[in-house]
C-alpha cells in the first residue's frame, strides 16, 4: 500500500464521484423542488450513452457524438416531462415510484427493441486513449482525467447557475419552499420542465462519458440510479452542494472500501473470513454509510428545506 497507489485510487474515487454527481445533480432537484420520486433517472443515463455511442459509431467522431447527444438528451427529457411526468407531480410518492418503475421497464425494452439486446460497441477516442503521469511512473488514463475535468466543470457550472442567476434563485427558493415559489408567481410549470430536462441532460452526459469505459447496454443506468439516490439522501434532498460533497464521499468510500477493506480485514481476521467478509462489507459500505447518516441527520448532511 504505497502512497502512489492510494493517490491513484483517490483519483479513481474522484472519477466515480463526479460521475455520480452528474446523475445526482438533476435528481436531487427533481426530488427536492418537485417532491417527485423519479426512479427512471437511470434510463436517462442509458439514453445519453446510446445517443452518443450510436452517433459516434455512425459519424466515427466521438466528440461529434457527444455534441449531438447533449441536445438530444435534453430534448428527450423535455418531452418526457411534457408527456408523462407533469401529470404525476400531485400524486403521492408511492404512485410516483410505481409510474417511474413502469418507465424504467418501458425505456429498457424500447432500447432493446431499437438497438437489440446486445451491448453496443464503443471505445475511447484515439486522442484520449493515452496516459498522463499524475506522479512519476504512475500513469493514469487520460480519458478518466478528462471525465474528472468535465465532471468538475459541470459541477462548477451548476453551482454558478444556481447561486448567481435569476432562474437559479427561483430554483433555490423552490428547493427551500415550493408553495412559496409558486405564490411568488414564478411560472412553476416551465421552471419544472427546464429543471427536469436539464437534470436528464446531465444524467445523459454521465452516460456519454461512461459509454467508452463500460458496456453500453439496456439497464446500464440502474446501478448508478441506486447509488445516486444514496448520494442525494446523504447530501440532503434538493441541495446541489450536498449532492456534490456526498457524491465525492460515496465515490471515495466505495472505491477505497472495495480496494482496501479486504486487506484491512486480513489484519484482524484470518484469510478465509477476511476474503468472505471483505467484499460483502465493501458492497454494503455505501448503504451502511447512508443509514448511519440518516440515523444521526434524518434530513441528510445539507438539508435544503428551510
Amino acid at each position, binding site marked *: 500500500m*504505497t502512497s*502512489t*497507489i492510494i493517490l*491513484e*485510487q483517490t483519483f*479513481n*474515487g474522484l*472519477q*466515480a464521484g463526479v460521475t455520480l454527481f452528474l446523475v445526482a445533480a438533476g435528481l436531487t432537484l427533481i426530488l427536492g423542488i418537485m417532491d417527485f420520486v423519479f426512479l427512471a433517472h437511470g434510463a436517462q443515463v442509458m439514453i445519453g450513452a446510446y445517443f452518443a455511442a450510436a452517433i459516434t459509431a455512425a459519424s466515427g467522431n466521438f466528440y461529434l457524438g457527444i455534441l449531438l447527444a447533449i441536445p438530444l438528451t435534453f430534448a428527450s427529457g423535455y418531452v418526457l416531462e411534457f408527456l408523462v411526468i407533469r401529470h404525476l407531480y400531485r400524486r403521492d410518492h408511492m404512485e410516483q415510484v410505481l409510474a417511474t418503475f413502469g418507465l424504467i421497464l418501458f425505456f429498457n*425494452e424500447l432500447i*432493446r427493441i431499437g438497438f*437489440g*439486446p*446486445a*451491448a*453496443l*460497441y*464503443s*471505445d*475511447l477516442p484515439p486522442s484520449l*486513449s493515452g*496516459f498522463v503521469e499524475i506522479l512519476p511512473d504512475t*500513469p493514469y*488514463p487520460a*480519458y*478518466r482525467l478528462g471525465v474528472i475535468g468535465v465532471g468538475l466543470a459541470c459541477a462548477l457550472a451548476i453551482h454558478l447557475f444556481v447561486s448567481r442567476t435569476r432562474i437559479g434563485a427561483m430554483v433555490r427558493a423552490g428547493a427551500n419552499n415550493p408553495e412559496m415559489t409558486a405564490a411568488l408567481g414564478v411560472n412553476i410549470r416551465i421552471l419544472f420542465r427546464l429543471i427536469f430536462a436539464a437534470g436528464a441532460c446531465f444524467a445523459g452526459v454521465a452516460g456519454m462519458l*461512461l459509454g*467508452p*469505459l*463500460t*458496456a*453500453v*447496454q*439496456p*439497464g*446500464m443506468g440502474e*446501478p448508478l440510479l441506486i447509488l445516486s439516490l444514496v448520494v442525494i439522501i446523504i447530501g440532503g434532498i434538493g441541495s446541489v452542494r450536498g449532492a456534490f460533497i456526498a457524491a465525492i464521499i460515496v465515490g471515495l468510500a466505495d*472505491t*477505497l472500501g*472495495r*480496494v482496501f477493506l*479486504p486487506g484491512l480485514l486480513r489484519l484482524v481476521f484470518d484469510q478465509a473470513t477476511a*476474503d468472505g467478509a*471483505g*467484499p*460483502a462489507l*465493501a*458492497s454494503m459500505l455505501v448503504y451502511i454509510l447512508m443509514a448511519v447518516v440518516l440515523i444521526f441527520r434524518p434530513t441528510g448532511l445539507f438539508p435544503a428545506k428551510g
Partner: protein
Amino acid sequence: MLEINWGVKMKKIMVAAVVLAAIGVGVYLLINEQKKEVVRVGYMTTLSGGAGIIGKQMQNAVQLALEHKGGRLGGMEAEVIFVDDQRKPDVATQLANRLVKSDRVDVVAGIIWSNVLMAVIKPITRSDTLLIGSNAGPSPIAGEQCHENFFSMSWQNDQTPEAMGKHMQDAGVKSVYLMAPNYQAGKDMLSGFKRYFKGEIAGEVYTKLGQSDFQAELSSLRAAAPETTMVFQPGGMGINFVKQWKQSGLDQVSKLYQVFSVDAVSLPALKDAALGILGTQSWSPDLDNDINRKFVADYKTKHGNYPSFYAAQAYDTILAIDHAIATSGSKDTDQMRAVLAKGNIPTTRGLLKMNSNHFPVQNFYLRDTVKDADGVVTTKVLSTVFADHADSYAANCKF
C-alpha cells in the same frame, strides 16, 4: 366533469383489457392443445431483461437444430415450447410446473443460470421428466444433489477454470492474480482453477456482482504487477473488464487469461480490444467436425454473426434429445435416460461421453482471440488442455 370523463376512459380501457385478456386465454389454451405422437420439448431460457442476448442466441440455435432435423426429433414430430424465466428463480419454478403439468412436455431443456437450475431441478425431475441443461453446472447438482433425470450438455462450473489452471501450470506460470465477482459461481471458478494451478497466488480479488467499473481493482493490480492475471467476469462485466484492462494499458504489466469473459456474445462489443486474450472452453467455432462446421456455417449465414458457446450447447441439447429418441425409438423417460447415460452423443464437440453423474466427459481447449478471413474477431483453438476431462464431484453423486 373531468372525473366523469376519466371514468368513461377508464371503463373503455378496462373493457379493452378484459377483451385482450380473453384473447390471451384463447391463444393460451390453443397452445396447450394436446396432439398425438409428438415429442414436446420445453426450452427454458432468459429472453427478456439484460441477459436477453444469451437467450436469443440459444433460441436461434435450437431453431437451427430443428431445421437441420427437418422439424423432427428421432423421427417424431417435434414441438418446442420456449419459455422466458426472466432470470427469476420463482418465475422459473412456475414455468417449470407449467411445462410438466400443463404442457406435459417429454423433456425440459435449456437454462442459463445456476440459481434458476437449482430452483427448477426438483419439480421437474420429481415429475419423472428429463431435464437437459444447456449451460449451468453448479457443483451441488454434479454431486450430492444430483438426479438421474438431469443431464448436462455443457460442463460442471469448475471444469473450464480447471483447464485454465492446468494450462498455466504446464506453461510454467509462476504466479497469478485472480479476479472474479463475489458470488457463488465466481468462488467455484477460482477454487476450480486453484485445483490445478499450484503456483503462487499473487492476489485474489472478489469484485461486486454486476460491477461496471473495475478501474480501482485495475489500479491495485497495476501496483501488484503480477506475472499473470486470470479473470472470470461473465456477460456485461466481461465487456467492461476487458475494455478497461486494455484502456489502462495493463498488457504491459501482466498477461491476461480469462474464462467465460470473452465469447461471441461480448466480442461484437469488444472487437479488436479482445485480440490475443487466451481462454479455455470445451467448444470453439473452429472445432473441426462435420456437425460443428455445418452448425457454425449455417448459423452465420442465418444470423450474420458467430454463434457463442451458449448457442453451441443449446444446439447440442437438441441433438441429444434427437439421439435419445432415435436410438431408443421412444420418448419414454426411462428409455431416453438409458441411452443418454451411455454417452456417445453426436454433438458439435464430437461424440460426447457421459459421466456417472450425467455430466459430459469432454476435451477442454485453449482458445486464442483472433481475426478470421473477413476480419471478424472470433476465437480459435490453440491446443487441447484436457482430453476426456471428468469433473471432480461425480464421486459424491448417488442416484
